[in-house]
């Protein structure tokens, strides 16, 4: 009897059909699970990206699908005589180059400031403070207000005639002439950076706060007994443990700042004299307002190498550090 039971179960073992086997195969199952995500990625990410790159290689304008022109939007050398050559395309366009430098400057300064202020606030909020919950909510406010709304508010704050800052400073007797926040190139640049930092700090602060709260309190206690002061504790315990989350949050921050559009467009529209154009705003101006889809797309495409570089840096930064790696079964 035992014998026949064995044999029957052996038969049952070979039983399952192709469908069942496919369903039980890890890789197949994984493939099925990934399919919807892949489809969405292709549809909503790859297609627009591909279209943008394609447009940058055409002379399309609004109402005109355009034809392939190779890299002429980026670089074109035309010679009128032996020593009389002109470079056209983005390479020869000093407004474009200005927007590149402005984008890099804007991103660098704003990101560093957001990081410093965000980290400071996070450390502050991680302490036992009175009204901690309320403070945390308040800090999130700039993040909750729609960007355009806060941009309009800043536009008023920076207005040449109605600026509340100029008004207060005059009333206090500190200045006797209203500050031309948006009319002067450097004033405009710093004003925009300030607005961006104001908007971006909550995200950094709250994310870093979440990171801080994952550090076990006993590590601080151990460090206290080991003789670490406040600064040493930050330097040797908090900061190293926070690096993974710093890498994530700063990658996002850099990407968002680099591609910033709304704030600039609502406050300065790239002015005065193109001084505050970022690549994104310049691209929009050329493509949609100017009608030169090909040129606008070329400017957007030119952002890709920078963004890729930023992602690469964080990708290597994000790779699990050795100390985060668990045992082999982890």
């Amino acid at each position, binding site marked *: 009897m035992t014998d026949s039971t064995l044999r029957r179960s052996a038969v049952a073992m070979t039983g399952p059909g192709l469908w069942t086997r496919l369903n039980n195969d890890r890789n197949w199952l994984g493939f099925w699970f990934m399919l919807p995500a892949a489809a969405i990625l292709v549809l909503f990410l790859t297609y627009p990206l591909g279209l943008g790159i394609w447009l940058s290689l055409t002379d399309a304008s609004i109402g005109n699908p355009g034809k392939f022109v190779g890299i002429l939007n980026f670089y074109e050398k035309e010679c009128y005589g032996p020593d009389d050559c002109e470079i056209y395309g983005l390479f020869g366009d000093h407004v474009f180059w200005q927007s590149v430098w402005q984008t890099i400057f804007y991103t660098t300064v704003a990101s560093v400031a957001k990081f410093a202020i965000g980290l400071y606030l996070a450390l502050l909020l991680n302490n036992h403070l009175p009204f901690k919950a309320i403070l945390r909510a308040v800090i999130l406010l700039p993040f909750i207000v729609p960007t355009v709304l806060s941009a309009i508010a800043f536009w008023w704050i920076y207005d040449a005639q109605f600026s509340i800052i100029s008004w207060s400073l005059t009333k206090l007797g500190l200045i006797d002439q209203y500050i031309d926040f948006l009319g002067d190139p450097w004033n405009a640049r710093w004003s925009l950076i300030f607005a961006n930092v104001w908007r971006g700090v909550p995200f950094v602060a709250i994310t870093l706060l979440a990171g801080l709260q994952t550090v*076990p309190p*006993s*590590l601080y*206690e*151990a*460090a*206290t*007994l*080991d*003789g*670490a002061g406040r600064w*040493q504790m930050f330097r*040797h*315990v908090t900061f*190293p*443990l926070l690096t993974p989350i710093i890498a994530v949050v700063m990658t996002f921050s850099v990407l968002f700042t680099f591609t910033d559009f709304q704030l600039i467009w609502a406050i300065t529209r790239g002015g005065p004299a193109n001084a505050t154009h970022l690549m994104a705003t310049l691209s929009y101006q050329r493509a949609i307002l100017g009608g030169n889809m090909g040129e606008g797309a070329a400017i957007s495409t030119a952002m890709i190498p920078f963004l890729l570089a930023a992602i690469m840096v964080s990708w290597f930064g994000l790779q699990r*550090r*050795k*100390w*985060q*790696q*668990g*045992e082999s079964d*982890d």
Partner: protein
Amino acid sequence: MADVEICDVRKSFGATEVLHGVDISIPDESFTVLVGPSGCGKSTLLRMIAGLEKVTSGEIVIRGQVVNEVPPKQRDIAMVFQNYALYPHMKVFDNMAFSLKLAKVDAKQIEEAVHRAAGILNLEDYLERFPRQLSGGQRQRVAMGRAIVRDPQVFLFDEPLSNLDAKLRVQMRTEIRELHQRLRTTTIYVTHDQIEAMTMADQIVVMHDGIVEQIGAPLDLYDNPANVFVAGFIGSPAMNFLPGSVERGGRAQVTMSNGTTLPLAEEAAAGEGQPVVYGVRPEHLDLVSESDGFAAEVVVVEPMGSETQVLARLDGREIIAAFRERHEFHPGQRIHLRPNLAKVHLFHQDSGQRL
């Protein structure tokens, strides 16, 4: 190395007092174990000694100096945490060297100190690993190594073995004990496990609900528990408690509510009619013939190899007896047990204090 005095120490968190005046004297070079059930305030007391928790009132004195207001890093104390609290981003070497680096000890001396400690703890092969790459027992040793390199005045351990499996726990118990015999640093060790307390301590402090129930050497507590709590807490399986009242007509005995009589030594310090709790340890019950002792009904038999434990029912309550000899028992069987008169403990029924 130093002695530690804890004088009438109280601790409140907000309005709740969790330590109600604790007095403990910890001699230099001793191994003192604070033991008690969960929530009795052992960790709180230890953390106050370390300086991680403020003292609400009373004094903590280390080597003659009141340290209530001395910041932790100046107390020269090392602590091993229950979760080890190793710095995950530092290699074992750096974990152990951290305090010395902060103290600006020169690199060569640090190297020496760490290697010496690693040698004692068999960690030399692991110095270049990160904590995550170590087993629980190895992490435990690194945590101890971190304490040793500093050569502190006092070692504090807060349930260091509770994350380890049973076998490793027994092994580490011995290792910690050996380490103490070697370094002779005053050690205060917190555990809720009375076996750990019994096997490791020179001096056990039994705590309960924020007070000290009894302080003494392990066997002292075992042989002369001051009250019902200590009697029930120390020893495994726990002491049997049988309530009854003393009768002194003729032979002294304790009579339970169902009429069962328990023999009592004549010199027992209890008056006629006094309600008492009669305590007897499982190993002090002898199996006797039907005409002797009291009867009980076997419920469960647990052979342990070295001894056999029998859970029996007597007047609605369960008692445990442990026998070195092997007997055949089966559930439902009626057996007769007789307490070893010299080993009987009598406690006051209301206060629980020893009579």
